[in-house]
């Protein structure tokens, strides 16, 4: 009872704080994109190569690109209130529909990457902390620093060389085997096979971050009085670590996991390019190159939304893990 009320209060606080942030993001992104030289009409005209001044003006009028800036902004906000992200002139469909098609693949990819990063990172960090100063720790520390220094797109390409080109174990790109007509479990396995390499490429950097962070946090917690209390009870070292150290050490780690969620989303842009993954990152990149700013605004807004949702979940997780957190 009390527990749920506490979590609800944390939730409410987070949501209230998020509203002005979201509004700021919309306005800032909107102004930024409108300040940019060139618009969708320019690019379309450039591509067709035959556009006259009249057709350009017509295109602009059609998409509302000829209106004063403030009016465009208000129109956009008005649309948002009705949960509409506008229309994409290039793809010829509503932005929300377009994003809806791409979002699930990106979320799956990110989810798997995040899971790998958190699980492997925490295991790595705990191992390093438990062997602190010994050779296991030294070797793993160098490995994690290496992971931290490798560009995700490059490791992605190298994984393709090794696992697709040389060994032929895993597909080098795409989301599923096209035209294979797989169903049921086979289809799931096929999907997973396609996800392993991109998710790993995306995860490595964060494995390193969580590993290093967990190591520091575990070492910090291990020197606390209550850990000595646990040892004085006669608990085995592994039990002490898992039950008493890790749960406290995870508090700072979860906080940072929220901060890095946006980073993973950004990393998806590059990794989706490497693996021709039909996700949000590709969509963002394509729409930048085509000056399709309605789509881009939608993607940016949705990304910020995802980050905020992730942060909210992290806040709740944090509050659940740490009973001392009350509404501040």
């Amino acid at each position, binding site marked *: 009872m009390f527990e749920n009320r506490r979590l609800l209060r944390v939730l409410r606080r*987070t949501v209230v*704080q*998020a509203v002005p*942030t979201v509004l*700021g*993001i919309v306005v*800032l992104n909107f102004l*930024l*994109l409108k300040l*940019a*030289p*060139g618009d969708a009409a320019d690019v379309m005209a450039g591509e067709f190569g035959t556009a006259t001044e009249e057709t350009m003006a017509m295109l602009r009028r059609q998409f509302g690109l000829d209106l004063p800036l403030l009016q465009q902004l208000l129109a956009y906000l008005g649309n948002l209130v009705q949960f509409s992200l506008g229309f994409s002139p290039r793809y010829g469909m509503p932005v929300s529909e377009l994003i809806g098609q791409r979002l699930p693949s990106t979320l799956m990819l990110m989810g798997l990457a995040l899971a790998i990063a958190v699980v492997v990172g925490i295991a790595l960090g705990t191992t390093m902390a438990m062997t*602190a100063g010994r050779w296991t720790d030294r070797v793993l520390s160098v490995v994690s*620093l*290496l992971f*931290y*220094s*490798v*560009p*995700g*797109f*490059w490791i992605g*390409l*190298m994984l*393709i*060389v090794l696992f697709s*080109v040389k060994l032929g174990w895993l597909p080098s790109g795409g989301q599923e085997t096209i035209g294979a007509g797989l169903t049921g479990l086979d289809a799931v396995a096929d999907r997973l096979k396609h996800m392993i390499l991109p998710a790993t490429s995306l995860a490595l950097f964060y494995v390193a971050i969580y590993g*290093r*962070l967990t190591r*520091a*946090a575990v070492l*910090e917690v291990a020197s606390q009085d209550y850990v000595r209390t646990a040892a004085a009870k006669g608990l085995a070292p592994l039990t002490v670590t898992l039950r008493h150290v890790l749960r406290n050490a995870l508090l*700072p780690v979860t*906080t*940072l996991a*929220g*901060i890095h969620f*946006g*980073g993973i*989303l*950004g*990393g998806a*842009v*590059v990794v989706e*390019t490497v693996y021709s993954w039909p996700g949000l*990152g590709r969509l*963002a*990149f394509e729409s*930048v*190159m085509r000056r399709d700013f309605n789509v*881009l605004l939608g993607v*940016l807004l949705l*990304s*910020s939304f995802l*980050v*905020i949702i992730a942060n909210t979940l992290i*806040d709740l997780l*944090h509050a659940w893990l740490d009973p001392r*957190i009350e509404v*501040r």
Partner: protein
Amino acid sequence: MTAATSGHTPDIAVAAPPLGSWRAVRAFLRNPAAVLATLFLIMVAVTAVAAPLIYPEDPLSMVARPFLWPGQNPTFPLGSDSLGRDVAAGLVWGARISLLIGIAAMALGVTIGIVVGATAGYFGGWIDDALVRLIEIFQTTPSFLMLVVLVAIAEPRVESITVAIALVTWPTIARLVRAEFRSLREKDFVTAARGLGYGHARIIFIEILPNALPPIIVTSSVIVASAILMESALSFMGLGDPNRISWGSMIGAGREMLRTAWYLTFIPGIAIVLTVLALNLIGDALNDALNPRLSSEP
């Protein structure tokens, strides 16, 4: 969100010895990995500066038979790409871009971050609230996505890439500086400076900032590393300066030949990894040297 996240840069702490302390320098020099990393970076920097002397030819010009593998021809030790460009020359010239953008973007980002963070942390109140909100807006947008948008709409050139990277990295420094200033502004020496009637600018830059520098320096080396990574990712995606060769653009070009000539992707990637690794090793060593509290000895 703010309260929970602001204090969490656990690998960087307050209360460090003054910068001039020889103890910190010696601690740094006692770390063999850091010394090795420093030597490597000096080597890269010298190569980058001397690139016009080592390879006077434009690295984008055709000089050899295409697809020479490394070691096939001693004149081109690292081989040649699909257009017969010398990979070794590309590496040397690419180092210029990587280091230039990495350092310039860091300098700009750190400057913005210090100004914003110091203002927010020192003055507090509504100024702090507003600036924290601004930082939050930047940190809520995925930074690489933001970077792609900024560079794409502003024409990819060295200058615009540098500014764009600085624009997505300053919030990290700003948050760090803000936290430092919030704790330092309550200290006695600051109160004393106020009592002496010093102006805000003097207190911020002469009294507080030097004491906040150690964590800023540590983070700066890591920011150079991440700026290099960002630049390479941009170039890889075709958003680099088209007139300059860079490690990322070499990888992007090599990608097309991944199945047949993977060395074209491999070699510039190794250059990035080693450079970034060196910077991160230096960051770690600086952290240990400037934050004795966290080193292994009690």
